[in-house]
């Protein structure tokens, strides 16, 4: 089998909790908030933050408290 046709190795991370922003500066803004940053366990890119699993409601509540109206994908999933 040619290398271009070979299956691409991949690792799946399922049920990951993330926050994605449209702009990097917005992610910085979120990280600057201690009340929110405590739930952020990592930053995958300029605009994607890794959030502690199982704390969705608290994070959403905090985002709303900070004046954001996040689109929520897959809550309860």
């Amino acid at each position, binding site marked *: 089998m040619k290398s*271009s046709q*070979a*299956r*691409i*190795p*991949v*690792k*799946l*991370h*399922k*049920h*990951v*909790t*993330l*926050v*994605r*922003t*449209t*702009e990097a500066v*917005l992610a910085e803004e*979120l990280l600057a908030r201690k009340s929110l940053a405590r739930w952020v*366990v*990592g*930053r*995958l*890119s300029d605009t*994607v933050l*890794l959030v502690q*699993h199982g704390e*969705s409601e608290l*994070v*959403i509540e905090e*985002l709303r408290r900070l004046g*954001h*109206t*996040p*689109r*929520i*994908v*897959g*809550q*309860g*999933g």
Partner: protein
Amino acid sequence: MPQGSQLPTSPRPDERPGPSPQPAAGHEPRHAFRAALGRYKGTRLGAIRLAQGASPDGLRIRPSGSADEITEHLDAPASVQGLVARLPVGSRLALGLYGLTEATSFSVAGLSLALRVVETEPLPAIVKLLDLGLLAVDPDSASGPVDEFSEVLELVDPTRVSLRIHPAVPKAIRMTRPEGELLKAAGPISQIRESDGLEGVLRVAAVWQRVGAEPLRQTQQGVLYKRDSDRIDLDPVLASPIADTLAAVPDLPSLWLALACRVGLIEQDAEGERLLAAPWEFWTENEFHLPQMIATAWLALKDWHELQGEGRTEIESEAAVPYLRPALLLWLSTLDESEWVSLEDLADHLSAQWPAWVRLSLKAETEETSRPGPGGGRGRARARNDSGPRPKALSILEAILLGTAYPLGLVRAGIEPTTQRRVVQLSALGRYVLAAGASPPPRPAFEHFLFVQPNFEVIAYRQGLTPQLVGRLSRFAWWSQIGSALELKLSRESIVFGLDRGAKPNWMLETLTRHSQRPLARGVVDAINDWAQRRERVIFYAATTLMEFGNETDRNRALELWPEGEDEAPPVPVAERFLLVENDRAVPYSRLRLMSSRDYRRPPEICVAVERDGVTLTLDPARADLLVDAELSHFADPLPSSDTVHGHASARGERRFLISSASLERGISRGKSPERLSEWFERRTGGEIPASVQLLLGARTSRCARLKAARMVVLTLPGPELVEGLRQHPATTAFLGERLGPSSVAVPEQHLAALQDALKELGIALDVE
């Protein structure tokens, strides 16, 4: 007057959690019915099966009946219809009460009360149903096996004994009316009033919004937490009085919440910890039936009643008022469309039959013994007993028929001109719910009933509203006033509420535009679009899938292979090696080789190996998750992949981290205490903190903040016994220091000369190198 009509069927499930939901285990109706039969004696089951007769397929009855056999026999509608045809009127009335309320269980006391109100002696009617297995008696668990029904019904507390119905039975019966005749109002009725029937729909819609915005938390006993209870009780929209009503009823917020729960707009979560708003689809699936569903829910409602208000002053299971509702409406269903009855005459009629019907507690009802038998006072009841329970009776009728049945659209009211008394009859909806008439006609269309103001307030005229439109508007406009005038508010939160429920901005604008009397203000259109766009600025993925590739090239190749789907959100590239996938069903697995999969709902795995030096940590790429990188970054630094540490080359694909004094200092400053570090090592490496890391930690404590070094003279002897001799002998022991081994002992430098002298005295020479 139809004496037997099929009940309209409601599409909702039989049981819905209420504001104080009952335990759900084992409450699936057929299962509960079968379980109740399972507590019968075998001989009793055999007698029931025999009484039921052969099944429609003609199979012979087995000599010994079983709970399963009886339950299965009733699964066939033809079997049920055959049995119902053999029933007396009283028993058919009892079954009709189940059908009318869509209840799967009544307490003996409650069913008895309702039957007495419709002039039926309860015991024979119920026993007949039990004999044929159409009902199953379910006493409390302390009671023994069921044999003689009359004994169970008379000896056990009737408020604690349930009568369960096979779920197929109510669907197979036709509504039976009471046989008595009410005294009709005289003359043409004036001042006829009928509500628009939207009150219930509007209020449960407001409940749905409020619970959707913030779920209600409840205790394990199904009681709302005070904060959440207050939120509902004090909500001005839910607590505001009904504008078009003829009698006040208490505790309206509890009524609306209870109705919303029963119709299924509010659901209990799987854990039983919260009440949640049903998905938006509920509205599209039930919008045409909702008024009927609310009416049926009200007829069966026991969490709230018109005279007490959610059982706060009375034990809920003992309140009598809920059982009066279906009985009273059954009486009204005996009138034809041109006939009316005054509340006074209805009260007199009921009191003449059974004066105790006004008792508000089932307990009191069960103790009541002095009552006329069925039909004892049947007939005209114009002669009133004014010294009797009439005033209380009137207040009960007013509360039930004028306080709730009227605003829910089940009853219309008027005035009898000659006496100026209030008269009532069933409305078209009421007749439909009671299976006494056809489906009510649709409301006249009034397309432009909205007035959308530039300040985002929306005035809605009730004339134009329908349940469907209430549902549509509730999705994205917040009910802020429900009265004779209706007011909604558009806000960022309300638009986001709609977006969260799948509504698109164009759909919202189209809904407003179509029903608005004027073109929408530019500011309103812009605000809705802006609020919708702002929502996309921050996206929260509660449980998404991340695909991790070995490198950017592989990631980009996978992206090219991705199938195009109109409805699916495309994968989002993240950093160099990741793809964020909203729906992993769209992943082209056939083109990928799955190396490993990690589910973040499960506890973290051991995925870090500690190398021999104790400060180098190696990540197992197959088992590592995304969190461990972040965890490590707190107190360790990544090593370049080609790097070697202390002579150990990293294996292919493995990533390595080094714990240094500086990195550990960083971790400590970020709250990584020795205890938390110890917990991390246990969780991620399966072992304790390595000694070399403990050394680094120790350097930050007083334990070894400052070490001391000193020169030492070591005296090594040919054997351990000689060391013991030196340590024991009084001439030498004072000059020795710490023993360093079996044959070695330290000698403090200042004592060396003295030791030499002492040994010399003992005849031993000690030379110093």
